Structures are given as structure tokens and as C-alpha cells.
């Protein structure tokens, strides 16, 4: 029993060794290209697999490709072309095969092509060139590979139509040129603005100051000699000159804001407000006004500019008061996040909302947006002084701080300005 089984096992090993040799030979034959077809025994019975199967798949793939594909022999004659290439050069496929490839290159680019053509036989590469189509030139990219076959070496070229890319590039270039021209115009207009600022700062202000000086002179030194009517005229000259001075300075401030660089630092809103209240000390006690300051945070800002914003808003609140009512101004702040503002940001940002509320004359809510425009004045000139630039300056500064300023009011029921600023710049 034991001996018999040993003989059986030896026999089995011999059989397996034979099968292994056969399998190795088959693999070697496949590798050497000596096999045309394989018969495989499967559940569905015997099946025939030929190399042709794979070949057909590649042929279909190349035919259906959206790019042109050709093979050239060593003399540059097209020995294979897919139909896409034939349609690119607008010739029947039968006519394309057998033609010289260089004939399809745009005439003025043929010499260039022939110069580099020889190199591609030894070195694969890509280059851009134009094909000659009926009446026009088609920009294409050639992707060139040489392939050594048993019979001869062939050059395989994939031809990609670049018309779309080229037109996109052209549009892009045009847009860039337009942008450059716009930038130049912008730089010029900025220069003009600076020029204007310099004119406004000296050439306009110097004669204006003379009017102020000499009308004041008239008032201080010769008032007694003037008739009552003349006294009134002098007063009017002084008032008008002062108004004009305010206007010029405010316009200058506004125009300089565009050119000025923002230097942000941590600014304590509370100390800014306290400083401003001190500046308005006289006006506050004259009008018996009360200014209440809530808990105000620190924000990253340009201190001088932010001070200007609060100065303008508090000054307005003290200016547009309801006659017979003690002015009450409350300034409060609350930290909020972007979501509470209805903003969804990739990185969570913290903001603060500052509210400056008064019990003054207010304004018609219809004008809530337009009050931030230059020279927009809702009140008759005679009853309230000012240039009408203060809120425009405030808005421009808040814009530069990536913030928002909103005005709310009901006529006769006070107004409220809300400023939303990022805590960090």
C-alpha cells in the first residue's frame, strides 16, 4: 500500500513537470509573436482568441479618435490615415493615403517642417504647425513617434486641431490688452486726481484765505464805519469763505483717501470716541447733549481714518438735532460672526457691529443709500452747515476697511448708523 502510493506520486510529479514545460514553451511562443491564435477551454466550450481581436480594438479606437492620426513611411508618404485627418484636410480618405504628408502642410511652413522632419525619425517630439485646408490654415499640434517594425520604420503622428485653443488664446490676449489699456487710463486719472489735489490744496486755498483774512480785517478794524447793510455783506462774505474752506478741505480728504495706503494697527474704539467727545466739548455743553458709550472693542484699522469716520458721524448727530430736545447719542458695539451677517465664508471671521444712534431730526428712509454720495445733502443749506462730503468720506473709509456702513431712520425720529467691521484685517 505504502510502496504503491509512492509510485503513484512519482508518476503524478512527472506528469506535472511535463505540463509545466509545455506552459513555459507557450508563454515563450506568445512573447516571441509565434502564436496567431489560442484555443482556450472554458465553461462555454472551446473558444478561439486571436491577436486580431486586439488589433481591431486599436484600429477602431484610432478611427473614432477626435484627433487626426497618420503613419508615414521613410519617404514621408502616408501609409495610414484615420478619417478624422482626412476631414481635417478636407480630402477623401482614399486620396490622403498615398499622398506625401508635407503636401498638407501650409505652403509657407513647409521648409520649416522639412528642416525638423528628419530629426523626428530618431527623436520623438511635439511641435506646432499649420495645415493647409481649403482656403484657410488650421493650427495644429503634431505629436510624433517613430516606430520600428520588422519590415521598416514608420513615423506615427497624432494631429491635434488647435483652432479652438488658438482662438481662446487670441481672445485672452485681446482681453489682456484691453485690461492694460484700462489700467493705463486708470493710472492717468489717478495722476489727474493727485494733480487736482495739489491744485486744490494751494492754488485754490491761497486766494480763498486772502478773502477770509481781509473780510475778517474789515470786520475787526472798520466795522464801525460801515452801514448796517454793509456789515451784513461782510458777515456773508466771511460765512461763505468759511464754507468754501470746509468744502475744499473735505474734497481733499476724500480724494486723498484713494491714494493713501492703509496702515492697519489695533485701534481702541472707545478711546477714539472719548477723544472726539473731548473735541466737541463746547458744542456738547452748549446743546446740553448726552453721549453714552457702551462696551467698545478694539479693531484693526487705520487710526486716523477711523477717527475721521466717528468724528463725522458724531458731528452729524450733534448738528442735526431736534429743536427743543436734549440730544442723546448712544454708541454701542457687539461682536458677531459672519454667519450672523448672512455670510458664509471659507474661514470663520469675526466682525463687530457698531451702532451710532441719535434722537435728532432723522431723514427719509428713501434716501438711506444716497446720503453716502458726494455732495448729497438732504437738509436745506440755511438751517444746517456742512459740505455734504462727511458721509461720503465715512463710507469710503469703511469700504477701505472691508466693512459696511448702513443708515436707518424715520424722519423726525432720529437716525442710526450701523458700521460692520472685521476685527482683524
Amino acid at each position, binding site marked *: 500500500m505504502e510502496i504503491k502510493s509512492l509510485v503513484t506520486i512519482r508518476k503524478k510529479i512527472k506528469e506535472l513537470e511535463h505540463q509545466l514545460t509545455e506552459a513555459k514553451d507557450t508563454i515563450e511562443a506568445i512573447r516571441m509573436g509565434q502564436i496567431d491564435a489560442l484555443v482556450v477551454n472554458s465553461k462555454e466550450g472551446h473558444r478561439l482568441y486571436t491577436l486580431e481581436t486586439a488589433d481591431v480594438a486599436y484600429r477602431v479606437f484610432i478611427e473614432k479618435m477626435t484627433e487626426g492620426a497618420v503613419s508615414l513611411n521613410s519617404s514621408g508618404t502616408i501609409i495610414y490615415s484615420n478619417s478624422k485627418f482626412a476631414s481635417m484636410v478636407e480630402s477623401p480618405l482614399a486620396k490622403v493615403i498615398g499622398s506625401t504628408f508635407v503636401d498638407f502642410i501650409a505652403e509657407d511652413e513647409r521648409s520649416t517642417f522639412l528642416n525638423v522632419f528628419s530629426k523626428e525619425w530618431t527623436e520623438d517630439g511635439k511641435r506646432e504647425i499649420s495645415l493647409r485646408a481649403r482656403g484657410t490654415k488650421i493650427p495644429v499640434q503634431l505629436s510624433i513617434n517613430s516606430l520600428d517594425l520588422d519590415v521598416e520604420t514608420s513615423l506615427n503622428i497624432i494631429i491635434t486641431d488647435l483652432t479652438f485653443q488658438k482662438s481662446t488664446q487670441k481672445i485672452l490676449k485681446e482681453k489682456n490688452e484691453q485690461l492694460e489699456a484700462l489700467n493705463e487710463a486708470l493710472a492717468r486719472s489717478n495722476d489727474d486726481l493727485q494733480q487736482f489735489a495739489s491744485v486744490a*490744496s*494751494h492754488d485754490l*486755498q*491761497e486766494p480763498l*484765505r*486772502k478773502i*477770509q*483774512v481781509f473780510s*475778517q*480785517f474789515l470786520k*475787526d478794524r472798520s466795522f464801525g464805519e460801515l452801514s448796517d447793510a454793509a456789515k451784513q455783506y461782510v458777515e456773508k462774505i466771511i460765512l461763505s469763505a468759511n464754507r468754501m474752506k470746509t468744502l475744499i478741505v473735505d474734497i*481733499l480728504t476724500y480724494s*486723498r483717501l484713494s491714494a493713501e495706503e492703509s496702515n492697519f494697527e489695533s485701534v481702541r474704539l472707545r478711546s477714539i470716541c472719548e477723544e472726539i467727545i473731548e473735541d466737541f466739548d463746547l458744542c456738547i455743553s452748549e446743546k446740553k447733549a448726552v453721549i453714552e458709550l457702551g462696551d467698545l472693542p478694539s479693531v484693526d484699522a487705520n487710526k*486716523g481714518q477711523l477717527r475721521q469716520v466717528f468724528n463725522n458721524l458724531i458731528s452729524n448727530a450733534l448738528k442735526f438735532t431736534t429743536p427743543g430736545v436734549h440730544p442723546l447719542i448712544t454708541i454701542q458695539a457687539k461682536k458677531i460672526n459672519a454667519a450672523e451677517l448672512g455670510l458664509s465664508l471659507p474661514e470663520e471671521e469675526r466682525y463687530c457691529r457698531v451702532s451710532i444712534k441719535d434722537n435728532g431730526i432723522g431723514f427719509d428712509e428713501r434716501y438711506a443709500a444716497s446720503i453716502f454720495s458726494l455732495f448729497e445733502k438732504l437738509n436745506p443749506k440755511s438751517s444746517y452747515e456742512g459740505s455734504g462730503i462727511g458721509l461720503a468720506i465715512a463710507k469710503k473709509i469703511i469700504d477701505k476697511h472691508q466693512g459696511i456702513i448702513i443708515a436707518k431712520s424715520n424722519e423726525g425720529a432720529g437716525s442710526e448708523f450701523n458700521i460692520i467691521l472685521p476685527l482683524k484685517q
Partner: protein
Amino acid sequence: MRTKKVILVEDDPDDRDLFVIFYSDRKDIDLLPSVRNGIELINYLQNISSEKELPDLIVLDQNMPVMNGKQTLGYLKSNDRFSKIPAVVYSTYADSRLIIECTRLGANMVAVKPIDNDGYQKMMDDFLQVL
């Protein structure tokens, strides 16, 4: 207290007159004849041989032809003999840039030109304080 010799450098005749009108009554200053620009000031200073005769204060208008206030200030502060004389700049319009530049050049003060007597008196009081 010794009266201070003050010289005004100013191209505008009205502004030169205003100095005389507002300051000729002041006992604490001795107003020297004005000059019209930086070059005239330098000539004037160079013709003074005795150090005691040099002015105690130079008031420079900013906006002047030939050599403006800043340029004159720059010259004065780089000159061994004149750099010790206190100098101030006054201008119709003074923005932060002018103030910073003049202070950097060594101006003792920068002022906005006043428009009335009170303003002129206060300006001179301020100037004399920094001497």
C-alpha cells in the same frame, strides 16, 4: 527777557504786510525786514558777520518760487553755522505729509496760516515757546 529777532521768508506781499500789521506792536519780538525766498534768506544770513546778529527765529512760507520752505529748511539744517537757528514752516494748507517731512528735516514747528489777529498772536506765542 530779550526781544527775539524774527525774520519772515515769504513771497506774498500781502502776507508780509500782515506780519507787520499784527506783530509790530509786540514788545517781545523784533521783526527783521522780510526776504522773498530761500536764496534771499541765505544771502542775508551770509552777510551777517557777528553771530549775535543772526536771527533767533526763521519763519518759512512753504509755497515759494525758486526755493520753497522745505528746501530752504533742508539747506539751513545742513549748514554748520545756520543749523542751530530755530526754524518753523507755515503754510496755507498743511497735511500730514508736509508736517512729517518738515519735522524730519528739523523744523521746530509747522503751522497753518491764520486768518485773523487772534490766530496770528497765538501762532507767534507758539513759535516763541519752542525757542
